[in-house]
């Protein structure tokens, strides 16, 4: 009996090996030289988290790109029409998993990469993309380090120094705050980045900051909230991931934190809106896009999500439009624009064409500066209406 079982197992394993061999053989003749007539499918890599800390917003960002692919599944280069195929990988919101996810995209021979949500994973993946010479368009990774010194990394969103400054201006203009409590997550480039830039800007405006950090896997925020209250802070700044924020806000409501909570683009998520609903909290966030900015786009996007059950589930079960979805949509079109400009779709031509690409997206006009960062000068600020559980436009904050 045991022998039979062993034999069977070996047979199954061998079959698996055969399948592997078959797979790895197939693509080789299919694309000997990208950019020639041999292929008529262009692969765009989607480098996003679908699990882990940033799983929820990562899925929403992917959704934006997928929708763009539905709207515009082909691209015309030099009179020939090519199909665009999305290759989606999950970087699991983790800096070490990001590297292998990036390698998957490289081995799939994608022409350009979109992503990621979260600066840490983008930085972690950038070495792999750089070595392979694949150009990347960051969607909502806001840390300066992503593009700095990387001539192949571009992005369509604003940066953390900008975002931190926006929040500091908001705190001072709106609340005349003197003392702020800043909560960041250790080892999260986005979180620590925004926290630091906020601190610098806020102190320049004459305020005082108490900065505290928490670690991966922490779920007890009671001590942090108690500290913020005991120190007499007037405002709480928490640029943290959605997952941690859900826990933090729940406990902030229980402990009656009693001060406005400001955050960056991560809070612009219906997960946060759901947590905040019906609670005694005052939540603001800076973000890239507000629903209603382009009604035609909004209604089409919603209709698409309603028609596709998976898409609806990935958006958290309702059709609220997250800003990162819209950025994901714009990033896709920026990539197509670059291909048209280059007149080719191999990675080197796209990389060469990207710095000069200009595109009028749903989130506004997109052009790149010398670092490859989008040139932006204002951010939307949203306020959570805790009765309806929906974000409302609070104002547009310019940076002084």
């Amino acid at each position, binding site marked *: 009996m045991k022998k039979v079982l062993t034999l069977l197992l070996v047979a199954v394993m061998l079959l698996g090996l055969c399948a592997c061999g078959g797979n790895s053989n197939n693509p080789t003749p299919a694309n000997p030289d990208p950019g020639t007539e041999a292929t008529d499918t262009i692969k765009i890599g989607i480098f996003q*988290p*679908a*699990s*882990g800390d940033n*799983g*929820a917003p990562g*899925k929403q960002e992917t959704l934006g790109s997928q929708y763009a692919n539905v709207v515009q599944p082909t691209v015309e280069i030099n009179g020939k029409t090519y199909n665009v195929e999305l290759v989606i990988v*999950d970087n*699991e919101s983790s800096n070490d998993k990001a590297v292998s996810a990036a390698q998957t995209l490289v081995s799939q021979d994608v022409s350009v990469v979109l992503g990621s949500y979260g600066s840490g994973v983008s930085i972690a993946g950038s070495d792999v993309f750089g070595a392979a010479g694949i150009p990347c368009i960051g969607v909502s990774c806001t840390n300066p380090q992503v593009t700095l010194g990387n001539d192949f990394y571009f992005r369509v969103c604003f940066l953390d120094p900008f975002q931190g400054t926006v929040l500091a201006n908001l705190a001072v203009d709106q609340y005349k705050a003197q003392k702020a409590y800043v909560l960041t997550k*250790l080892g999260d480039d986005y979180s620590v980045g925004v926290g630091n830039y906020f601190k610098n800007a806020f102190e320049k405006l004459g305020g005082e900051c108490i900065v*505290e*950090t*928490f*670690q991966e*896997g*922490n*779920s*007890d925020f*009671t*001590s*942090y*909230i*108690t*500290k913020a209250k*005991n120190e007499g802070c007037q405002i709480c700044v928490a640029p943290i991931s*959605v*997952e941690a924020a*859900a*826990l933090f806000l*729940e*406990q902030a409501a*229980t*402990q*009656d934190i009693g001060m406005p909570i400001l955050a960056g683009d991560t809070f612009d998520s219906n*997960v946060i809106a*759901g*947590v905040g609903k019906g609670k005694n909290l005052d939540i603001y966030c800076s973000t890239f896009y507000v629903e209603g900015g382009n009604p035609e786009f909004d209604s089409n996007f919603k209709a698409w999500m309603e028609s596709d059950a998976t898409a609806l*589930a*990935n958006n958290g079960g309702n059709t609220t439009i997250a800003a990162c979805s819209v950025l994901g949509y714009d990033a896709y079109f920026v990539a197509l624009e670059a291909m048209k400009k280059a007149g080719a779709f191999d990675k080197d031509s796209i990389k060469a064409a990207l710095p000069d690409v200009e595109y009028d997206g749903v989130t506004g006009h997109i052009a790149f500066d010398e670092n490859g960062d989008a040139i932006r000068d204002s951010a939307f600020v949203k306020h959570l209406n805790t009765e309806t559980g929906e974000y409302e436009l609070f104002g547009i904050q310019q940076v002084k």
Partner: protein
Amino acid sequence: MQWIQQNLPYFLAGISVGGQYALIAIGYTMVYGILRLINFAHGDIFMCAGLMLVYLSASLPFYVSIPLVLLLTVLLGFTVERVAYKPLRKAPRMSVMISAIGVSYLLQNVALYVTGGLSKQYPAIPWLSDTVTVFGALTKRVTIITPFLTIILIVLLVLLINHTNVGMAMRAVSKDFETSLLMGIKIDNVISVTFIIGSFLAGVGSLLFFSNYTGVTPTVGAMPGLKAFVAAVFGGIGSVPGAVIGAFIIGICENIIKAMGWTTFSDAFTFALLILILIFRPTGLFGEKVTDKV
């Protein structure tokens, strides 16, 4: 009064976290006491219990779903033991440990598949999740209940170990595996009972933990599991009261450290403590003095 009002939340959080660690730590310490196995999957059983309630409470009322979750958690612990550990009873201890790590990853990845990687919001259990005021400090009612419930459960457990036939069998097995086998004790049954008790307590722990910290993710069991393990080692692994006292000490110290403003080091403290104990008192506070045959 002012001072109490300001610092009480730290203590409350510490005691509550300590109670939750204690309930998990017992699972570690009992299994170790009997099998000499560190059951790495224990933290993940805790996570699964949380996840089960999220899904079950969506369609069932709490008075059905909570007992059902406890039952399913017990069943899960029992199955894990039968499938992954029992066939390896005669194998070297290292193989069982690796099997435990395998189960841990299996459970995490199944959870990842089921949830799609997204954090699930734990349902608010009425009464337990209400906000109450204690000497001017706000907290959830579950925080107050946790230490008392923990102590009641542990007293019951100690009574069970010291005054029942099953308890006597457990003590016998943990003293000498082979002799008790020769004396006619059904070892497999005793081990199953151990896993059932451990999983039940992990299930209760998950109710208390997630009512306070409402996000359930596939890896949420890892950190509390690790800290409970440190607590079990601190108290002397194999000793039930030791694990409980260790858990409370760790929970309270962590929060005192946070109160002092060294938030960055609160986890480092826990693991530094583990190293210090292993150096200066390898058997922990209440550990057996006899040198083991390992």
